[in-house]
């Protein structure tokens, strides 16, 4: 969320081929001459605007029994390769789409489409993260995904995406063994707010100085409940555990929706 430092701006956001709406028009008000000053207690969260959009997205995902996962990592951890390998294993089984967040280009969306899934590119321009408002607009462009999967590949950045709830069911942080094993300590917020840590590129472990146990220990100091899966999107090792994790969560999501609908049917029947 260090947008103050990295110069985030919403103005250049592009969802798919359409221009992102501007919601930050300034109001020019004439100077008020009366001197009736007063204090107003506000106590409002600065990110409450994003939180409102996130709530709306979450309701939409629940109604569609759609499992939305927010994938966060630094650039180069292998998010897109992981997604293409995941799509190969899941395509044809369930409705599936990917929202790709990048500052520029639609290269990642093209890679996803080549793997056989629907992909929508959001270009954030100078922005360093996706926000819930962009996801709401992206959902309007995507086909019906009822009962399926939505992967949101966030902008490669371990700082700002931590602060922005997109309405996802789970946040998944990806760390590759070519990075430092102490990254959880350096960027604690993103690990604190994630449910699953995927350690990618484990086929390279013999060639790098990455202490797997230390990394997991650091991550659990910040988030004792974080789940960990080790895998290599390239060789396929560990991919089965990840795909199982996704499928289990998707089944749970469907079950929750079925229970909610059954409860509603019972309520309505009682009114007959």
């Amino acid at each position, binding site marked *: *969320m*260090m*947008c*103050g*430092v990295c*110069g*985030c*701006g*919403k103005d250049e956001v592009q969802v798919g081929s359409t221009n992102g709406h501007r*919601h*930050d028009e*300034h*109001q*020019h*008000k004439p*100077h*008020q001459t*009366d*001197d*009736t*000053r*007063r*204090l*107003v*207690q*506000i*106590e*409002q*969260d*600065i*990110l*409450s*605007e*994003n939180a409102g959009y996130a709530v709306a997205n979450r309701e939409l995902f629940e109604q569609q029994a759609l499992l939305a996962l927010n994938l966060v990592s630094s650039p180069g951890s292998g998010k897109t390769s992981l997604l293409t390998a995941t799509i190969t294993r899941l395509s044809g089984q369930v409705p599936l789409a990917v929202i790709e967040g990048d500052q520029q280009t639609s290269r990642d969306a093209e890679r996803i489409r080549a793997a056989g899934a629907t992909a929508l590119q959001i270009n954030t321009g100078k*922005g360093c993260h996706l*926000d819930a408002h962009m996801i709401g607009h992206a959902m309007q462009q995507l086909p019906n995904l009822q009962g399926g999967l939505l992967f949101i590949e966030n902008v490669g950045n371990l*700082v700002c995406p*931590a*602060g922005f709830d997109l309405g996802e069911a789970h946040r998944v942080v990806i760390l590759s063994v070519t990075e430092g094993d102490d990254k*959880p*300590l350096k960027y*604690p*917020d993103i690990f*604190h707010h994630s449910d699953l840590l995927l350690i990618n590129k484990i086929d390279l472990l013999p060639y790098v100085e990455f202490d797997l146990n230390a990394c997991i220990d*650091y991550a*659990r*100091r*910040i988030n*004792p409940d974080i789940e960990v899966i080790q895998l290599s999107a390239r060789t396929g090792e560990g991919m089965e555990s990840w795909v199982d994790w996704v499928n289990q969560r998707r089944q749970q999501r469907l079950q929750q929706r079925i229970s909610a609908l059954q409860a509603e049917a019972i309520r309505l029947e009682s009114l007959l």
Partner: protein
Amino acid sequence: MSIANSIIRLLQQQAQEQHFKRVKHVWLQVGPLAMVEVESLRFCFTAACRGTLAEEAALDIISPEARARCQQCGEEQPVTSRFDACVHCGSYRLQLLQGDEMRVHELEVE
């Protein structure tokens, strides 16, 4: 910058709801673990205010101490990071009670 812009949008919304025309003073609460660089926020806030109802508004940022409760032994304590261990029992299972907030606390308006 997007945080500073969010603050301005929040002020504009409040101006309609609470019927004021200008904002003279803004008090924010930004905890030490809120992931925001306070000096950057000050700089961006000044820029974001230009041409708005909060033009030249004074800004005060209150930073409450970060405190957590250990879910293992129940002791409450001050913390300095998300990965502090409990000073009483050594557990990392600390639940943050305050210190990551980022909110508009109070306004002086006219």
